[in-house]
């Protein structure tokens, strides 16, 4: 997308989980993420959207080094795979994470100032006084009163806790923050405040966000670009407004149509092609395009061949046979399989 070197460069990322416990006779491999490529520029917000189980959180975890992966992740010019052993902690300087549930992501026995200072203590050589000053600055930055420094998480509301989690994430000034459903657990009015805070921090500190969320209205208001995930694959990616106003992939369309709009007159007039069914069983992935069993516009070819990625005018990348020209375009591949309908 960008001519200059992107901040985050994910290439052909795959994450495979083994399912079935050690006593289970049926051991299976589950592709949580398959061959995803994604770039984020400095100061850019890219949202990953999709249903639960689509693999969006797994990508966040891979970037954070929390799950083993195949493929390549480069962050600020450095290969994350090279941070092994002792060096692995220093990769934390490059990215930090804000989790969904501020009740379980903060240690209930630690006061707020220690929570925020923890990454500083582990990664920066600082005197105590310096650290305290830094914590005070961070509390200011996330718009919490300095008197909160000695409180315990239990004394804070959900929104305040999330602000503490954000302060902890930006303490060592990483260029990238991964927000995994960071505002999903909050009430709408609190949510707004936290989103505005994230916006403010982004402009002040030139932060980039990988913003993982299932809430499309939140995504629309924060993201520069959106990547839509389905069943471990990227099905569509492009500038937020282009994707929202003119979705190219039937799944994106279905997601947008499924979210009810808070306007009874318009909502009740909308034509809604409800997607039927649920995400397929990951141990038995469907053939061809993984969305075809639920897709309202599935064609014969969708059952047999996975669509390759194409780029549309509005700088949207999409994986769907509807946009491959001609629709039965990947004919060479398909002909070999001898499964296409009558000619």
């Amino acid at each position: 997308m960008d001519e200059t070197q992107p901040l985050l460069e994910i290439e052909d990322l795959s994450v495979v989980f083994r399912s079935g416990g050690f006593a289970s006779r049926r051991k299976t491999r589950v592709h949580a993420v398959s061959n995803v490529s994604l770039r984020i520029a400095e100061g850019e917000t890219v949202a990953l959207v999709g249903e639960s189980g689509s693999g969006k959180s797994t990508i966040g975890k891979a970037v954070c080094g929390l799950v083993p992966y195949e493929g390549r992740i480069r962050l600020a010019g450095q290969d994350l795979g090279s941070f092994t052993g002792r060096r692995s902690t220093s990769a934390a300087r490059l990215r930090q994470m804000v989790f969904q549930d501020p009740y379980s992501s903060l240690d209930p026995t630690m006061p707020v100032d220690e929570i925020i200072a923890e990454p500083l203590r582990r990664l920066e050589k600082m005197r105590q006084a310096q650290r305290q000053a830094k914590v005070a600055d961070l509390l200011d930055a996330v718009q919490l009163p300095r008197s909160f420094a000695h409180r315990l998480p239990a004394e804070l509301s959900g929104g305040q806790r999330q602000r503490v989690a954000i302060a902890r994430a930006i303490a060592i000034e990483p260029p990238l923050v991964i927000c995994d459903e960071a505002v999903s657990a909050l009430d709408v009015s609190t949510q707004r405040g936290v989103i505005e805070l994230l916006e403010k921090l982004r402009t002040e500190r030139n932060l980039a966000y990988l913003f993982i969320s299932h809430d499309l209205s939140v995504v629309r208001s924060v993201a520069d670009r959106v990547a839509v995930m389905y069943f471990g694959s990227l099905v569509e990616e492009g500038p937020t407004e282009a994707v929202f106003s003119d979705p190219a992939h039937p799944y994106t369309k279905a997601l947008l149509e499924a979210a009810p709009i808070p306007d009874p007159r318009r909502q009740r007039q909308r034509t809604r092609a409800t997607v039927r069914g649920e995400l397929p069983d990951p141990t038995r992935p469907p053939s061809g395009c993984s969305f075809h069993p639920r897709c309202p516009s599935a064609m014969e070819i969708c059952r047999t061949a996975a669509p390759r990625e194409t780029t549309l005018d509005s700088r949207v990348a999409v994986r769907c046979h509807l946009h491959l020209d001609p629709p039965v375009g990947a004919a060479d591949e398909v002909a070999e399989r001898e499964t296409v309908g009558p000619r």
Partner: protein
Amino acid sequence: MLTTAEPAAGVPLFEVDELSVEFRHGNRVRRVVDEVSFQIGPGETLGLVGESGSGKSMTALAIMGLLGRLRFARSSGSVRLAGRELLGSSYRELSAVRGPELAMVFQDPMSSLNPALTIGHQLVETLRRHQKISRRAARERAVEMLKLAEIPAAERRVSAYSHELSGGMRQRVMIALALCCRPKVLIADEPTTALDVTIQAQILDLLRGLQSEFGMAILFITHNLGVVADLCDRVAVMYSGQIVEKAPVLQLFEELAHPYTESLLRSTTGRPRAVRGTAAGAVEHGCRFADRCRYAQEDLCGQEIPLLPRAGTVPHLVRCARTETLELDTVRAIADDENKVGAGDG
């Protein structure tokens, strides 16, 4: 025992009147639900909207008689189903009502289903508790209910455990369980909040379909105004234990009259003015929203404000001292704003 007589003509099917819930902590008493009143007719859906802590779930639990066993909670007022008083009924009386008359669907289906029993077992147990039918007949009814809830392969799923099902399927099972005795009133407490939007749309369609088939009244509790716009006939907005605005759905969105409703709508539709602060605890005097309200005036908003009808033909109640002098942004104004920013509707 309560009799199962049909309601007399003119008596509303379901009526909640000045329902209050008080929590006692030592000597302190906190009113978490404050004189909430509403009626729901057969086939009608009332949306109860509010943020967490506004008292909407407590209202539901009080209606179901599920607070009765908590020592520190006391409910007062009246809950009438077809004219019969439910509040203060004994456990036995309530047990006869819950199921065949009044049923509830909770937010989290995983923790409301019994993980140690099969889906079928739970359905059969419920059916046989309220109806004199054989085990086999109950099992057949159970499968039938699962089919009505659009669960694929119902014959097989009836012997599944809840952990073997997806979130959406579990919620369908919950709905089947709630509706298996054909209740007249269904209370749905955030039934789609834990689900993905695609599954949410399916569950809302399902509820709509079953409602038109069974004609039950639904109290739909949610914080999502989109869901309200989609499903509800009338809406009551709760803030800090009180209903602050109540109106038919179109009226509520297009002629909203309470500043809290405005801010709620603004924060859901994107281009917001954030609501200041967080949801308030109990305020002793005056408007509870005043400290977060952009329009608050000390002299007017400092006194107790009643829920009053607005002028006009449509029943529209508002609890705001300044409502007549305010020009609040309705859903139209907000939509126009959005169009100006170039955010077309998908």
